[in-house]
């Protein structure tokens, strides 16, 4: 019997010929990503046990991201503890405030993520990095502590669900719309404990940046991981950032899947997930033009440069509606710098947006745009659970950066196609910048 890519990676990292779903394996870890909220408790646990050294500082990446620059005194203490710990451990892959970024965005962006890796982080959106053909999953602080001490962790080998994504993306439809559509079909626990594996012709139309949005939200369907096969687009992304060697794994033709779904991407429309579940997705035509108090563009889901380019292309020459606030939060410092160089900040600031430093910020109700009671927010983030972005009585709608930008202009939930040029120029521009026009045309 064949194996899936996830089974192959877990087998290779636990010295097995093969593994089957349900089996518990102890897998070697290639990368452990640490931020200031879940790492200090893990460090404290290790200290209590008298464990004062991590297994291998070179396999650890550290960046503060949730509440930096420090939002309050207690957060300052957490960031300080993280900083002191990485110093004392001699961890060199460290991104201090000023070079920082949301961990799931900065790790691949800075070339730390290689195909075939096993990756954990004390954060549920670790699944993001699976778009580069890795097994990447979120854990709590105890798992993180065990991993930091031993370089290994137990995993129940997950069953996999195969999503075949077919066709080009229609005008105004982005990878965020694809994943919101999938979650609307299978529910917030539709992939509970399972790996969400993607393949199909649509991938050719998706840059790495767009792909990360899809794997990022595996957890919103309850998934253990999201994973995509490594193709030329993925390899180009990696080779532009690092020359480290890596192993490639692909699912066998006769691999077994718990379920298979085929999605005709070319028939999709922009999606909006209504409050208060990520699975409440609807085509935008079915969504009432609700008045929106705040638009939030950012997060590990949609705070990459392509997202900001798309939002800026919609917002160019327009103003944020009266009675609406718009906040733009680049996912990393590198994204921030690129956006500034490209003039995107001119477009956003002329329109009346607030532009933040990179942070998880208000996505999880931290700061930089927390919502009050009864306020409405249309956000490019990943979750709209009760209380997620602030007061439990606030209402959060999830959508793509294009829909967010269009909504900022009108002040009500708005179809981005009202503002986008008829041809899919955004796609071509993004594709060109990522891997050259020839490759893109080859992809088509």
């Amino acid at each position, binding site marked *: 019997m064949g194996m899936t890519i996830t089974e192959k990676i877990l087998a290779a990292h636990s010295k097995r010929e093969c593994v089957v779903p349900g089996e518990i394996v102890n897998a070697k870890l290639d990368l452990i990503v640490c931020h200031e909220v879940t790492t200090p408790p893990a460090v404290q646990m290790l200290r209590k046990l008298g*464990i004062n050294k991590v297994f291998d500082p070179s396999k650890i990446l550290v960046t503060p991201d949730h509440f930096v620059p420090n939002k309050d005194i207690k957060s300052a203490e*957490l960031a300080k503890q993280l900083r002191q710990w990485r110093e004392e451990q001699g961890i060199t892959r460290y991104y201090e405030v000023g070079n920082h970024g949301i961990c799931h965005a900065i790790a691949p962006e800075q070339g730390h993520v290689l195909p075939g890796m096993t990756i954990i982080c004390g954060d*549920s959106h670790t699944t993001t990095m699976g778009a580069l053909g890795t097994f990447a999953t979120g*854990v709590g602080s105890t798992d993180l502590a065990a991993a930091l001490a031993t370089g290994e962790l137990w995993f129940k080998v997950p069953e996999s669900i195969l999503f075949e994504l077919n066709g080009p993306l229609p005008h105004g439809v982005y990878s965020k719309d694809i994943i919101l559509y999938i979650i609307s079909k299978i529910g917030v626990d539709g992939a509970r*404990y399972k790996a969400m594996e993607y393949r199909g012709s649509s991938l050719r139309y998706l840059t790495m940046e767009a792909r990360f949005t899809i794997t990022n939200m595996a957890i919103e369907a309850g998934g253990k991981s999201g994973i995509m096969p490594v193709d030329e687009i993925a390899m180009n992304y990696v080779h532009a950032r690092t020359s480290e060697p890596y192993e490639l794994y692909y699912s066998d033709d006769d691999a077994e899947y718990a379920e298979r779904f085929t999605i005709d991407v070319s028939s999709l429309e922009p999606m909006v997930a209504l409050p208060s579940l990520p699975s409440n997705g609807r085509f935008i035509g079915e969504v009432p033009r609700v008045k929106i108090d705040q638009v939030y563009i950012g997060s590990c889901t949609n705070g990459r440069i392509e997202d900001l380019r798309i939002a800026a292309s919609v917002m160019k020459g327009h103003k944020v509606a009266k009675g609406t606030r718009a906040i733009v939060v680049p996912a990393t410092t590198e994204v921030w710098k690129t956006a500034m160089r490209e003039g995107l900040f001119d477009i956003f600031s002329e329109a009346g947006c607030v532009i933040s430093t990179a942070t998880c910020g208000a996505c999880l109700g931290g700061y930089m745009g927390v919502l009050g009671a009864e306020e409405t927010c249309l956000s490019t983030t990943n979750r709209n659970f009760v*209380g997620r972005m602030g007061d*439990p009585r606030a209402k959060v709608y999830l959508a793509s950066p294009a829909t967010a930008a269009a909504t900022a202009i009108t002040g009500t939930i708005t179809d981005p196609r009202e503002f986008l040029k008829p041809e899919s120029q955004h796609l071509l521009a993004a594709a060109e910048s990522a891997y050259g026009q020839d490759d893109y045309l080859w992809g088509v």
Partner: protein
Amino acid sequence: MPELPTKLKGYAHVYERAHINTDEIIPARYLNVHEEAELAKHAMEDIDVDFVKRVQPGDFVIAGDDFGCGSSREHAVWALRGAGVRAVIANSFARIFFRNAINNGFLVIECPGAVQSINTGDELEIDLAAGRLRNLTKGTESSFVPLSDFARELITAGGLLPYIQKAHGAVES
């Protein structure tokens, strides 16, 4: 560490809704600390502000499907445990919450349907050895999915870190 007790008694706090997520169990506005006693003051705050006033040590939280979905914050387990909750009994659990629970030696029991026959305030007895959940107030009984051997080992050891120390000798220090 002591073996798991075979029987546990406590009172129920029922939340029927599916997908009670970690943002509700412990809102992110409290994630700037990780001390259990501090987190405990805010357990379940965004779903039931009175929970911490009512809960007594040894009580059980009873829930529907997919309890603990969302963020990976282990703070959710610490907040519940700190508030005195002895176990969560749900139709099903989200993956990371379940993992965090057993990694902490915190009891989580999958008992599909239990939530329908239990009211807040009912006295319950969990018979771990027999895999039975008894509602002493109503005189009803149901069976639950026994913990896997691995989960039982972790919980019995007191959590993942003591388990690793026990299984592999002292972790390299």
